[in-house]
């Protein structure tokens, strides 16, 4: 198991490097001088030269790439000061260190993810299990029908409606905003409640449908029938035998959803005017701010790889056939 982990971690580092390289060189295919972009209206050749030197753009591309990658491990020195590891460079646009702007935004992204996750896991899996348990009854039909309707909704459709009702018309709630958890957990939760609920609605519907269908599939497995033939209680068979097998597809999808959410919930952030990682990513590519784009890409890639490894570990925990001897 340890060997497996080490191998996966090394693989992850290699993939991170490749993603970095790919993003970097892809960016340089844009037919534009980044120094000119940051120079503004009254731009003299001397100014451009200074900017170019400041941003390190006067060096060959490969050298720039090397500086960027070593900066992540060892940190870098800029004219503005030392950027300590993990240094993802300095924004062309604002002159801020990229790692610092990511860390500014990350608490919001993390809060959005965690809050939404708790809601959609409890509601989604709960209602899916209920529907599978009561298969064919009115309760099942209600849950299944509702989940199909809700999963075809979109955040940018549902969001403004909820805002319109709860904020602009009735004034029950305030506009969503991020207030740090460490300051006051209650205001933190109230500030993000609307985005959580809207985001969780769509995810809940998906998880309901998924858990219902995998449970129904599992309940028809022969080993589940064997458990019943042994005289085990229906509830025991349901949760111990059928549920165990349903976890594999659920964990798979959960891993993908989580890594997507942690690398920025773009639509949610734009809908509720929140500044998270997703917004940073979109803004930086619009302004062609290479270091920020690189940073956000690598940050997202990190979560994708991390969750991949975690999901694999979860598989091994759930299914002994996956365990490596």
């Amino acid at each position, binding site marked *: 198991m340890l060997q497996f982990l080490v191998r996966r971690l090394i693989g992850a580092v290699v993939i991170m490097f490749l993603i970095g390289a790919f993003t970097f060189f892809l960016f340089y295919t844009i037919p534009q001088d980044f120094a000119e972009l940051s120079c503004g209206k009254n731009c003299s050749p001397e100014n451009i030269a200074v900017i170019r030197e400041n941003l390190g753009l006067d060096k060959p591309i490969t050298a720039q790439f090397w500086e960027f990658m070593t900066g992540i491990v060892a940190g870098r020195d800029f004219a503005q000061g030392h950027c300590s590891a993990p240094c993802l460079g300095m924004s062309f646009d604002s002159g801020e260190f990229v790692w610092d702007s990511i860390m500014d935004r990350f608490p919001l992204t993390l809060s959005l993810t965690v809050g939404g996750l708790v809601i959609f896991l409890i509601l989604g899996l709960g209602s899916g299990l209920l529907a599978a348990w009561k298969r064919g009854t009115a309760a099942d039909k209600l849950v299944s029908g509702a989940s199909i309707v809700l999963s075809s909704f979109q955040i940018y459709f549902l969001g403004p409606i909820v805002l319109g009702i709860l904020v602009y018309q009735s004034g029950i709630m305030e506009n969503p905003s991020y207030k740090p958890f460490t300051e006051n957990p209650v205001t933190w939760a109230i500030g993000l409640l609307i985005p959580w609920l809207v985001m969780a609605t769509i995810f809940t519907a998906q998880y309901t449908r998924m858990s219902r269908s995998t449970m129904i599939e599992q309940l028809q497995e022969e*080993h589940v029938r064997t458990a019943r*033939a*042994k*005289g*085990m*209680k229906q509830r025991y068979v349901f949760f111990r035998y059928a549920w*165990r*097998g349903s976890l594999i597809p659920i964990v798979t999808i959960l891993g993908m959803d989580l890594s997507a959410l942690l690398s920025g919930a773009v639509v949610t952030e734009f809908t509720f005017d929140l500044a998270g990682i997703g917004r940073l990513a979109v803004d930086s590519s619009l302004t062609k701010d290479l270091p920020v784009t690189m940073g956000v890409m690598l940050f997202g890639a990190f979560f994708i790889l991390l969750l991949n490894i975690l999901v694999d570990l979860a598989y091994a925990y759930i*299914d*002994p056939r996956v365990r490596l001897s």
Partner: protein
Amino acid sequence: MSTLTKTEGETAPTGPESFLSVSDLRVRFSTEDGIVKAVDGLSFDVARGRTLGIVGESGSGKSVTNLTVLGLHNPKNTTVEGEIVLDGKELVTATEKEMEKLRGNKVAMIFQDPLTALSPYYTVGRQIAEPFMKHTGASKKEARARAIEMLTKVGIPQPKSRVDDYPHQFSGGMRQRAMIAMALVCDPDLLIADEPTTALDVTVQAQILDLLKDLQQEFGSAIVFITHDLGVISEMADDLLVMYAGRAVERGSTAEVLRRPRHPYTWGLLSSMPRLGGSIDQALTPIPGTPPSLLNPPSGCPFHPRCAFTGEVPGDRCSTERPPLGEGRAAACHLTAEQKQTFFIDKIQPRLR
């Protein structure tokens, strides 16, 4: 014991000795295409210490019958009529709770494919111990000791370490042994074996059959052995029930039925089977046609569309009148007793050499 020893004309064959008695069982599934008559008026008895073999092709209702005995059918789309009496207790009307107490305890089942029938997520030991804890109230420790004891009994080497293995770490034959250990852990009085050797290779098959026979002698349980393999059934069963289209078409002691079969379907089954000592020039004769759809079973005798002997029965009785299955040694066929004998001796027996 079987219905063989019963006197003619006795209805509801629930003699004092019969442990499981199924009478006039009808099982119907409602599907989107219509109602499937999976089992249609089936009766049989099994006594303690005896083995009843049930043979028939796929879809003849063998497995459905036995799942119904355990109450494992889906109650939402299945209707069950008739009587299933186990040791004096009616099972068709029993509640789920009562059935839970019986399953794995008084009646246990061995399934066909031990790979899919054992859960991949729990150790073999746990799966064996579970019903023991549930039915006897034993502690975890006791149940584990019992699981090891059972694994030893079914011939698993190093049971003390193997008890913590998962099913995928077992070979096919060992898995079936584990499955048998699981079924026998509470000393069931009735064991239903649903094609327990079909998924195994021949040498392992023989071992498993020997094991079942030994265990039956030790525990004295009644066994219902379902298979489509006539070779296996001749090894195992005392009595034999041949099923076709959800009905019993022939019944008798195994030796009788296999040596002097009386039903054209049984003749067909025997003629289509290769023989070790047979001439290689003797072609195997398949039964013509295809098994009937149970959505819309043929009228009269369900076998009549495939039967070569309908011409021998006067009128159209074969397609209009359902032949009854008498008591004891019997075949549900309109041919007269003499006809059955002469046709078998003249037309069928030569092919079986």
